[in-house]
């Protein structure tokens, strides 16, 4: 498989507005810090993490909805962050986004035909009649009635609106779609419909997805590879099976153990690795490894002093931890759930 997009050293810092002394000591929210990954054509990369971990900002930087502070985004051999004018417009045709909230992402004053055809209008593709024809095609592709082009967004349910958002993203035949929490606002039965639709579209149109979500089960279902983020940094990247079966980073391990499994018998025997406290503020992130303040296996002073680099811990499996070790989290023989440690962790 050929590489479609490579993100290197992506960093985004948002300045924090402060009082009169802000010039003296400018403060930043470091939303994304030195994030690197690549996605192959036709592949789905899942980006997971808790709120505030920078996964959405990463997605937005990739499509240049937000301009990153530094780093590079190489798309088909060219740095997309340096593109201007005509080239940038071409790039925007190749990358599209599906937003989280299907209620806020559609203009209530546009008919859905206009919503879906708007990308075509902006890029000056086809006559008006052709655009409407294309919009109808697209609605059909995403499983909506093509005769509904004259209806307004409020006439549709959440799941249907998300389909409209998907149709709009498909309008320009993009190569890459950034899906920013596309199913988290939907009910489970509708969520499964949309996930299946995304799967089918990928097979039929050869799309590449960067799939951003906080729900680990959803990400597992849709992704080929998964990257886990914590406080602006990627802590682990691997093939989905590797990541879910043999996570190496203690954060990934505790994250996976925290998600309840919809199976009472499994749930009764599972051990949770409970993390203490909350995610620290990204304005003043912890030194060294950003996870060390909550990490059950942190060893001071090393973890507080040295930032761990992503290093290989297996076949195409990277983890950013000084002490990364494969702990199969469900098995009682694993060191992390041995009694003593479990007590220390759960307290």
């Amino acid at each position: 498989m050929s590489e479609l997009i490579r993100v290197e050293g992506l960093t985004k810092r948002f300045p924090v507005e402060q009082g009169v002394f802000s010039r003296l000591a400018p403060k930043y929210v470091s939303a994304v810090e030195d994030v690197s990954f690549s996605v192959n054509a036709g592949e789905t990369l899942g980006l997971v993490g808790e709120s505030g971990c920078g996964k959405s900002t990463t997605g937005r930087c990739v499509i240049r909805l937000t301009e990153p502070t530094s780093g590079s985004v190489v798309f088909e051999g060219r740095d997309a962050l340096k593109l201007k004018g005509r080239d940038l417009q071409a790039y925007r045709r190749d990358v599209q986004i599906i937003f989280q909230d299907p209620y806020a992402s559609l203009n209530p004053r546009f008919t859905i035909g206009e919503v879906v055809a708007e990308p075509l209008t902006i890029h000056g593709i086809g006559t008006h009649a052709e655009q409407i024809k294309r919009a109808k095609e697209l609605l059909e592709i995403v499983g909506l009635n093509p005769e509904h082009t004259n209806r307004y967004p409020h006439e549709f349910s959440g799941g249907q609106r998300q389909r409209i958002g998907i149709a709009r993203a498909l309008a320009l035949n993009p190569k890459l779609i950034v899906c920013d929490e596309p199913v988290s606002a939907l009910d489970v039965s509708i969520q499964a419909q949309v996930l299946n639709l995304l799967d089918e579209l990928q097979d039929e149109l050869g799309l590449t997805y960067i799939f951003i979500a906080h729900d680990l089960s959803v990400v597992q279902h849709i992704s080929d590879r998964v990257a886990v983020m914590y406080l602006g940094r990627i802590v682990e990247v691997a093939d989905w099976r590797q990541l879910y079966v043999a996570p190496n980073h203690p954060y990934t391990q505790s994250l996976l153990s925290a998600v309840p499994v919809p199976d009472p018998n499994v749930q009764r025997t599972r051990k949770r690795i409970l993390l203490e406290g909350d995610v620290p503020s990204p304005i003043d992130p912890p030194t060294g490894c950003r996870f060390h303040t909550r990490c059950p296996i942190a060893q001071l002073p090393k973890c507080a002093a040295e930032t761990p680099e992503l290093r290989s811990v297996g076949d195409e499996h990277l983890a950013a931890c000084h002490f990364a070790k494969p702990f199969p989290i469900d098995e009682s023989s694993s060191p992390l759930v041995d009694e003593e440690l479990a007590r220390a962790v759960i307290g």
Partner: protein
Amino acid sequence: MADKLLEVKDLKMYFHTRDGIVKAVDGVSYDLEPGQTLGVVGESGSGKSVTALTMMRLVPMPPGKVEGGEVLFRGKSLLTMKEDDIRKIRGNDIAMIFQDPMTSLNPVYRIGHQISEAIMLHKGMSKKQALNRSIELLELVGIPQAKNRIKDYPHQFSGGMRQRVMIAMALSCDPAILIADEPTTALDVTIQAQILELMEELQERTGTAIIMITHDLGVVADMADSILVMYAGRMVEFGTCDEVFYRPSHPYTWGLMDSIPRHDIEEKSALCPIKGQPPSLVNVPSGCAFHPRCPHAKEICRVQEPELRSIEGKHTAACHFAGDPGFTRTEMACAMEVTA
């Protein structure tokens, strides 16, 4: 058990709106024993929250109106008692935790004040005693430096911490029943794990019965002793946790189970979603409310509303075919076609 803590019998709560009658709760029955956890699951608009709010008499009437049924708490009817009497029960014997910890605390009062308010009202303690009790409660729910933090305002707490404050508040009068309405939906998974663990621990210690309203089947599998599945305001299935998960008898429950991806298995599970969308409550389909989306629907489903059928013991399902030989999830698996 001789003593039923709570009995809900054929409860009906309708809203009379301009567009018509919304049957938000239409014939829900269950009972709850001390120390038990009941999980109420369903999609948005299935009536799970309104059931709880009706019980607490927190639904504004009008437009809401109880059209039938009763709710007995320790044998006393909650729906007909005087407003003064229900106020003594609300927050005291039956407490509630709401979904959104960001909006359910009053932003202009200190945390200590908000917790001690209920204690002074229900337990007749002095302000000083109540504040001391508040500190104890905050320590109980794991808030560090509780002594200093009672002077803080809600905005000084994170989401998880605010939910802990809500729990402390709910527990302040040792309630017999704790109603938790999507208590962890707004929280991140690692924080959710903390809160669920805390609730389990407190239940063990205080023997409170919990009604856990959620759409997350994982949370239910983790916490519940028995499960009530709701659809379009109606009861679809009721049973113990194991019965509902391992021997589900209603096609809607199958659909739910087949719609959720699981992260703990090494093979990707195929998702078999339920086709179509949940019905509008103003215009509930005739007969079985689920029939337009049900792959097994027959003529009878369209015309006749199914009664709750007993499957085994207390396990019931509202489907004409529930419990029939051969009508099981495994034998009819994935018949739910992927259509829009």
